[in-house]
């Protein structure tokens, strides 16, 4: 069929050239090392690290996790080693592999993101993912009760992304929260501010209650829902967003099979990320990359891009 083997799966996500469109989702694959004995990192399109902050973080009290119908709620609270330790101890391991390295970062204020981006700029990483779905101290101050997320506010999203944009030449992925009225409007704002790609979705704010002692199961009260349960909503958001913006979309939310990944790609995602699915089956990213290739062969599709957004 004239399809060059090993070529057809490559994608270019805002300047990051990946050998296949399957990535790991931040927070579910640690710093890569933890899974490296189970999974061949060389075969993953890109590894997105656990979100890194300026200072090391302890995270939330336990329990941090509970299973729900076809999903899990987590409230890890960004436990991570901090940017310095990451650069010193975690990154050197990762760069040994032939995969793309995307560092997820977050902070309490815009300035934190700017500094993190600055610190990563000269390093051997392929891109930065701005996790702007964590509590925004400013917003929290306003409402008193409810922690607003950066990505729940168009203006803050714009300001944050444009300030980081000035700080680095690295490809910038902006990861959005699905807890919004109009996801495409926020994505448009991120694009206008200079983002190279949009990743969605992060988790849905969710809760479980232990009826025997009448307390939330998760120590922090609420957490984020991920897994197959959210797939139909995530898919709709990817579709809505991909139609609204011109930069690539990285789709995720409950992908557990090649079929799920293809749904996201057809809805408009240029690449997909696997999160919860890795816990179930660490081989999943590799199996999906192979599965997508098989689908393409069967349907005589030459490049992944041909089916991105091909929904008729």
């Amino acid at each position: 069929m004239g399809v060059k083997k090993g070529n057809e799966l490559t994608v270019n996500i805002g300047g990051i050239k990946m050998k296949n469109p399957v990535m790991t989702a931040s927070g579910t694959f640690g710093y890569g090392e933890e899974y490296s004995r189970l999974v061949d990192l060389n075969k993953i399109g890109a590894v997105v690290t656990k979100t890194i902050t300026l200072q090391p973080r302890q995270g939330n009290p336990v329990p941090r996790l509970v299973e729900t119908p076809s999903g899990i709620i987590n409230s890890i609270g960004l436990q991570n080693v901090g940017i310095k330790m990451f650069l010193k101890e975690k990154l050197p391991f990762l760069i040994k592999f032939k995969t793309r390295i995307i560092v997820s970062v977050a902070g309490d204020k815009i300035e934190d993101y700017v500094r993190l981006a600055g610190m990563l700029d000269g390093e051997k990483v392929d891109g930065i993912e701005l996790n702007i779905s964590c509590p925004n101290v400013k917003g929290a101050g306003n409402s008193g009760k409810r922690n607003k997320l950066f990505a729940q506010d168009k203006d803050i999203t714009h300001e944050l992304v444009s300030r980081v944009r000035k700080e680095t030449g690295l490809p910038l992925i902006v990861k959005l929260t699905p807890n919004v009225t109009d996801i495409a409007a926020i994505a448009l704002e991120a694009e206008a501010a200079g983002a190279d790609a949009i990743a969605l979705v992060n988790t849905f704010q969710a809760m479980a209650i232990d009826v025997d002692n009448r307390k939330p199961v998760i120590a922090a009260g609420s957490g984020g829902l991920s897994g197959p349960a959210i797939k139909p909503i995530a898919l709709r958001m990817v579709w809505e967003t991909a139609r609204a913006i011109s930069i690539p979309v990285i789709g995720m939310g409950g992908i557990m099979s090649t079929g799920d990944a293809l749904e996201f790609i057809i809805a408009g995602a240029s690449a997909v990320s696997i999160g919860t699915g890795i816990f179930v089956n660490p081989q999943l990213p590799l199996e999906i990359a192979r599965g997508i290739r098989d689908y393409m062969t069967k349907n005589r599709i030459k490049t992944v891009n041909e089916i991105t957004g091909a929904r008729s």
Partner: protein
Amino acid sequence: MKQIKAKIISNSRIKPSYFKMVMRARTAGPGEPVRAGQFINVRVTGRAGVLLRKPLSIYSACGKEHSIEVLYKVVGRGTEVLSRKAGGDELDIIAPLGNGYELPKKPQPVILIGGGTGTASIHFLAETLIEAGFSDVKALIGARDRENVICEKDLNKAGCEVQVATDDGSKGIRGYVSCLFESLAASAGPSMAVYACGPRPMLREVVRISRKFKVPCQVSLEEYMACGVGACMSCVVKTRKPSGGSSKQFVYKRVCSEGPVFDGSEIIWE
């Protein structure tokens, strides 16, 4: 640590809600020696119903035969699905996981304390110790009632002296297994080593008593787990900072990869 396909050899009910499952690696086995205190992470179904793998302690293992045994209680949907598997079925497991118990450096009396399903990991430790030449190994088993006393015979067979305590006195002494331990510790003192696995309150008591009598003590913890390999930070436990200090100064350690076995003095109980 490997993700392997295992074939179920048998999966039999040993008590109303307890099952013992024997499996053999189909693909290349764990490939690394398996230690007492380590666990496996079992995929229950790939479909929607049950999502997360279920962590189960290794009850016994034979390297030559690539076989692994687990003993589990049916407590929810995952273990229920597991209990319906039959010999010949294939399982997807990740094994071995965790650090495992540190054996005593020199011959000495050893006390093993198991509470509830925690007794499973204690059993493999008993086997290991006795194989390694430890001759004075006592096992103390605690349970709610006689229906929940497990492994007694197997521990005997392994070569342990076994004592039982139940909350309701329906088997062994009435009371907590930690009371059994306290009287033993009072007489033997620091010359022995103690290993415990079971519910938090039991472990806490065991650690308190060990400290009182200056007995070295290792405990194996359980926490809700997602990845089992140290990647997700779900399963952490508060431990004292190496520098010591107050309980406000703590580090979260991952039960799955930095544990499940910890030095008793390390844990901050809340």
